[in-house]
């Protein structure tokens, strides 16, 4: 048994939004897959008299579609669904790959991409690949709707910018046509674990590097794009020296954000090595090995 709370199950999205619009008069918490929220409920960290708004029955939030060349993902799709979806494997192979790394099969069957984003863990696996696709999130409330870049929706570790009465209802990805991919994820043991470092790379090459995108997760309170390394690589030859230098820039960017810490002597060379590996993997024309993962 969990500590007591009140339970509300909306039948439509509109009903959910109407209920959330009265949030000020009663603390309300959105429940999707529950793999983060139920832990919080269990530890008694929810105010008494809280309402749990169970959106897990809202089929309107479980969709996948393309619009104007972009991919739109409904927040209720589970990590399991995302990692095995043909469309996502084609459009965003690293997102499929990353979701296949989340927790265990049991957690992937329940945990949703919307919950992963709103919970905003520094180690959230779906976020770095979404940053490669310049993802936007659309928040909807009874009276308004706004779309913001994912990177600005993530304010700090475990703090997303969800306003009172709002629900995340769309995640939009831009295409990465003609890119190849690299993916590195460091965990403390061989299988099943929260990532210590995540590096996602997308490269477009034509003789030289036309465009590089590098997203790094789990190293800083909020995942980030290594813009200096990306800018350095643009128009450069993919020589070992250039890759090494880009990888060291990415590592420096991490330290600029998080400052020198007790873990820095470890993380600096490790991130550099992982970034290099991911770049090499992308250069080999890889799709990030998202294929066939569960």
């Amino acid at each position, binding site marked *: 048994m969990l500590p*007591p709370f009140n339970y509300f199950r909306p039948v439509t999205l509109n009903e959910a939004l109407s209920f959330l619009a009265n949030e000020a008069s009663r603390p309300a918490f959105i*429940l999707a897959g*529950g793999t983060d929220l139920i832990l919080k409920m269990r530890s008694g960290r929810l105010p008494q008299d809280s309402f749990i708004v169970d959106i897990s029955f809202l089929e309107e939030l479980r969709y996948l579609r393309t619009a104007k060349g972009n991919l739109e993902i409904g927040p209720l799709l589970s990590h399991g669904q995302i990692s095995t979806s043909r469309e996502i494997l084609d459009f965003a192979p690293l997102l499929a790959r990353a979701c296949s790394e989340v927790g265990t099969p049991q957690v992937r069957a*329940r945990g949703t991409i919307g919950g992963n984003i709103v919970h905003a863990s520094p180690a959230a696996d779906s976020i770095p690949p979404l940053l490669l696709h310049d993802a936007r999130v659309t928040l909807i409330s009874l009276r308004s709707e706004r779309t913001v870049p994912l990177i600005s929706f993530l304010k700090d570790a475990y703090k997303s910018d969800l306003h009172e009465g709002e629900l995340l209802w769309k995640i939009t990805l831009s295409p990465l046509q003609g890119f190849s991919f690299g993916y590195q994820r460091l965990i403390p043991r061989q299988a099943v674990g929260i990532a210590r470092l995540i590096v996602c790379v997308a490269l477009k090459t034509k003789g030289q590097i036309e465009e590089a995108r590098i997203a790094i997760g789990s190293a800083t309170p909020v995942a980030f794009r290594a813009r200096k390394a990306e800018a350095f690589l643009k128009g450069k030859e993919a020589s070992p020296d250039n890759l090494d230098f880009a990888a060291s820039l990415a590592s420096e960017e991490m330290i600029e954000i998080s400052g020198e810490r007790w873990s820095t002597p470890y993380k600096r060379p490790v991130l550099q090595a992982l970034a290099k590996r991911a770049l090499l993997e992308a250069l080999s024309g890889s799709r990030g090995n998202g294929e066939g993962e569960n």
Partner: protein
Amino acid sequence: MEKVKIKLTVNAREYELEVYPNQRLLDVLRENLHLTGTKEGCGIGECGACTVLINGDAVNSCLVLAPQADGKEVVTVEGLGQGENLHPLQEAFIKHFAFQCGFCTPGMLMAAKALLLKIPDPTEEDIRKWLSGVLCRCTGYQQIIDAVKEAAEEMKKC
């Protein structure tokens, strides 16, 4: 805290229940339906002892609110065999002595069942991956993996 009416199928039997929202599916299975095969280890999604199937997927029943199981098809370890007849997975676990204390076994069996529903002919790699959500602190995993392999082969025969 108001009770919630739910209707669900557990091991092919339909139930209409009134549950408290703060009951987890795990609590309803064990306390309301007295299906105590499903175990609670950690209660936080890490050990997998509470694994059951919901609509064919292995899930941690400690991380599902009972009202979220409304309308769903649940299978627990009690629903694996048929009456006195054990399921090939259960037979293989006994043959390979794939347990000692047995606390993880219901979870292992249900995770393996979910695997065989999706991949009837799994590789060792598949088995390791699909069982990765259940922890065993006694046996060592090799016997368990061997048992699942053999069960898959047995099931292909029938």
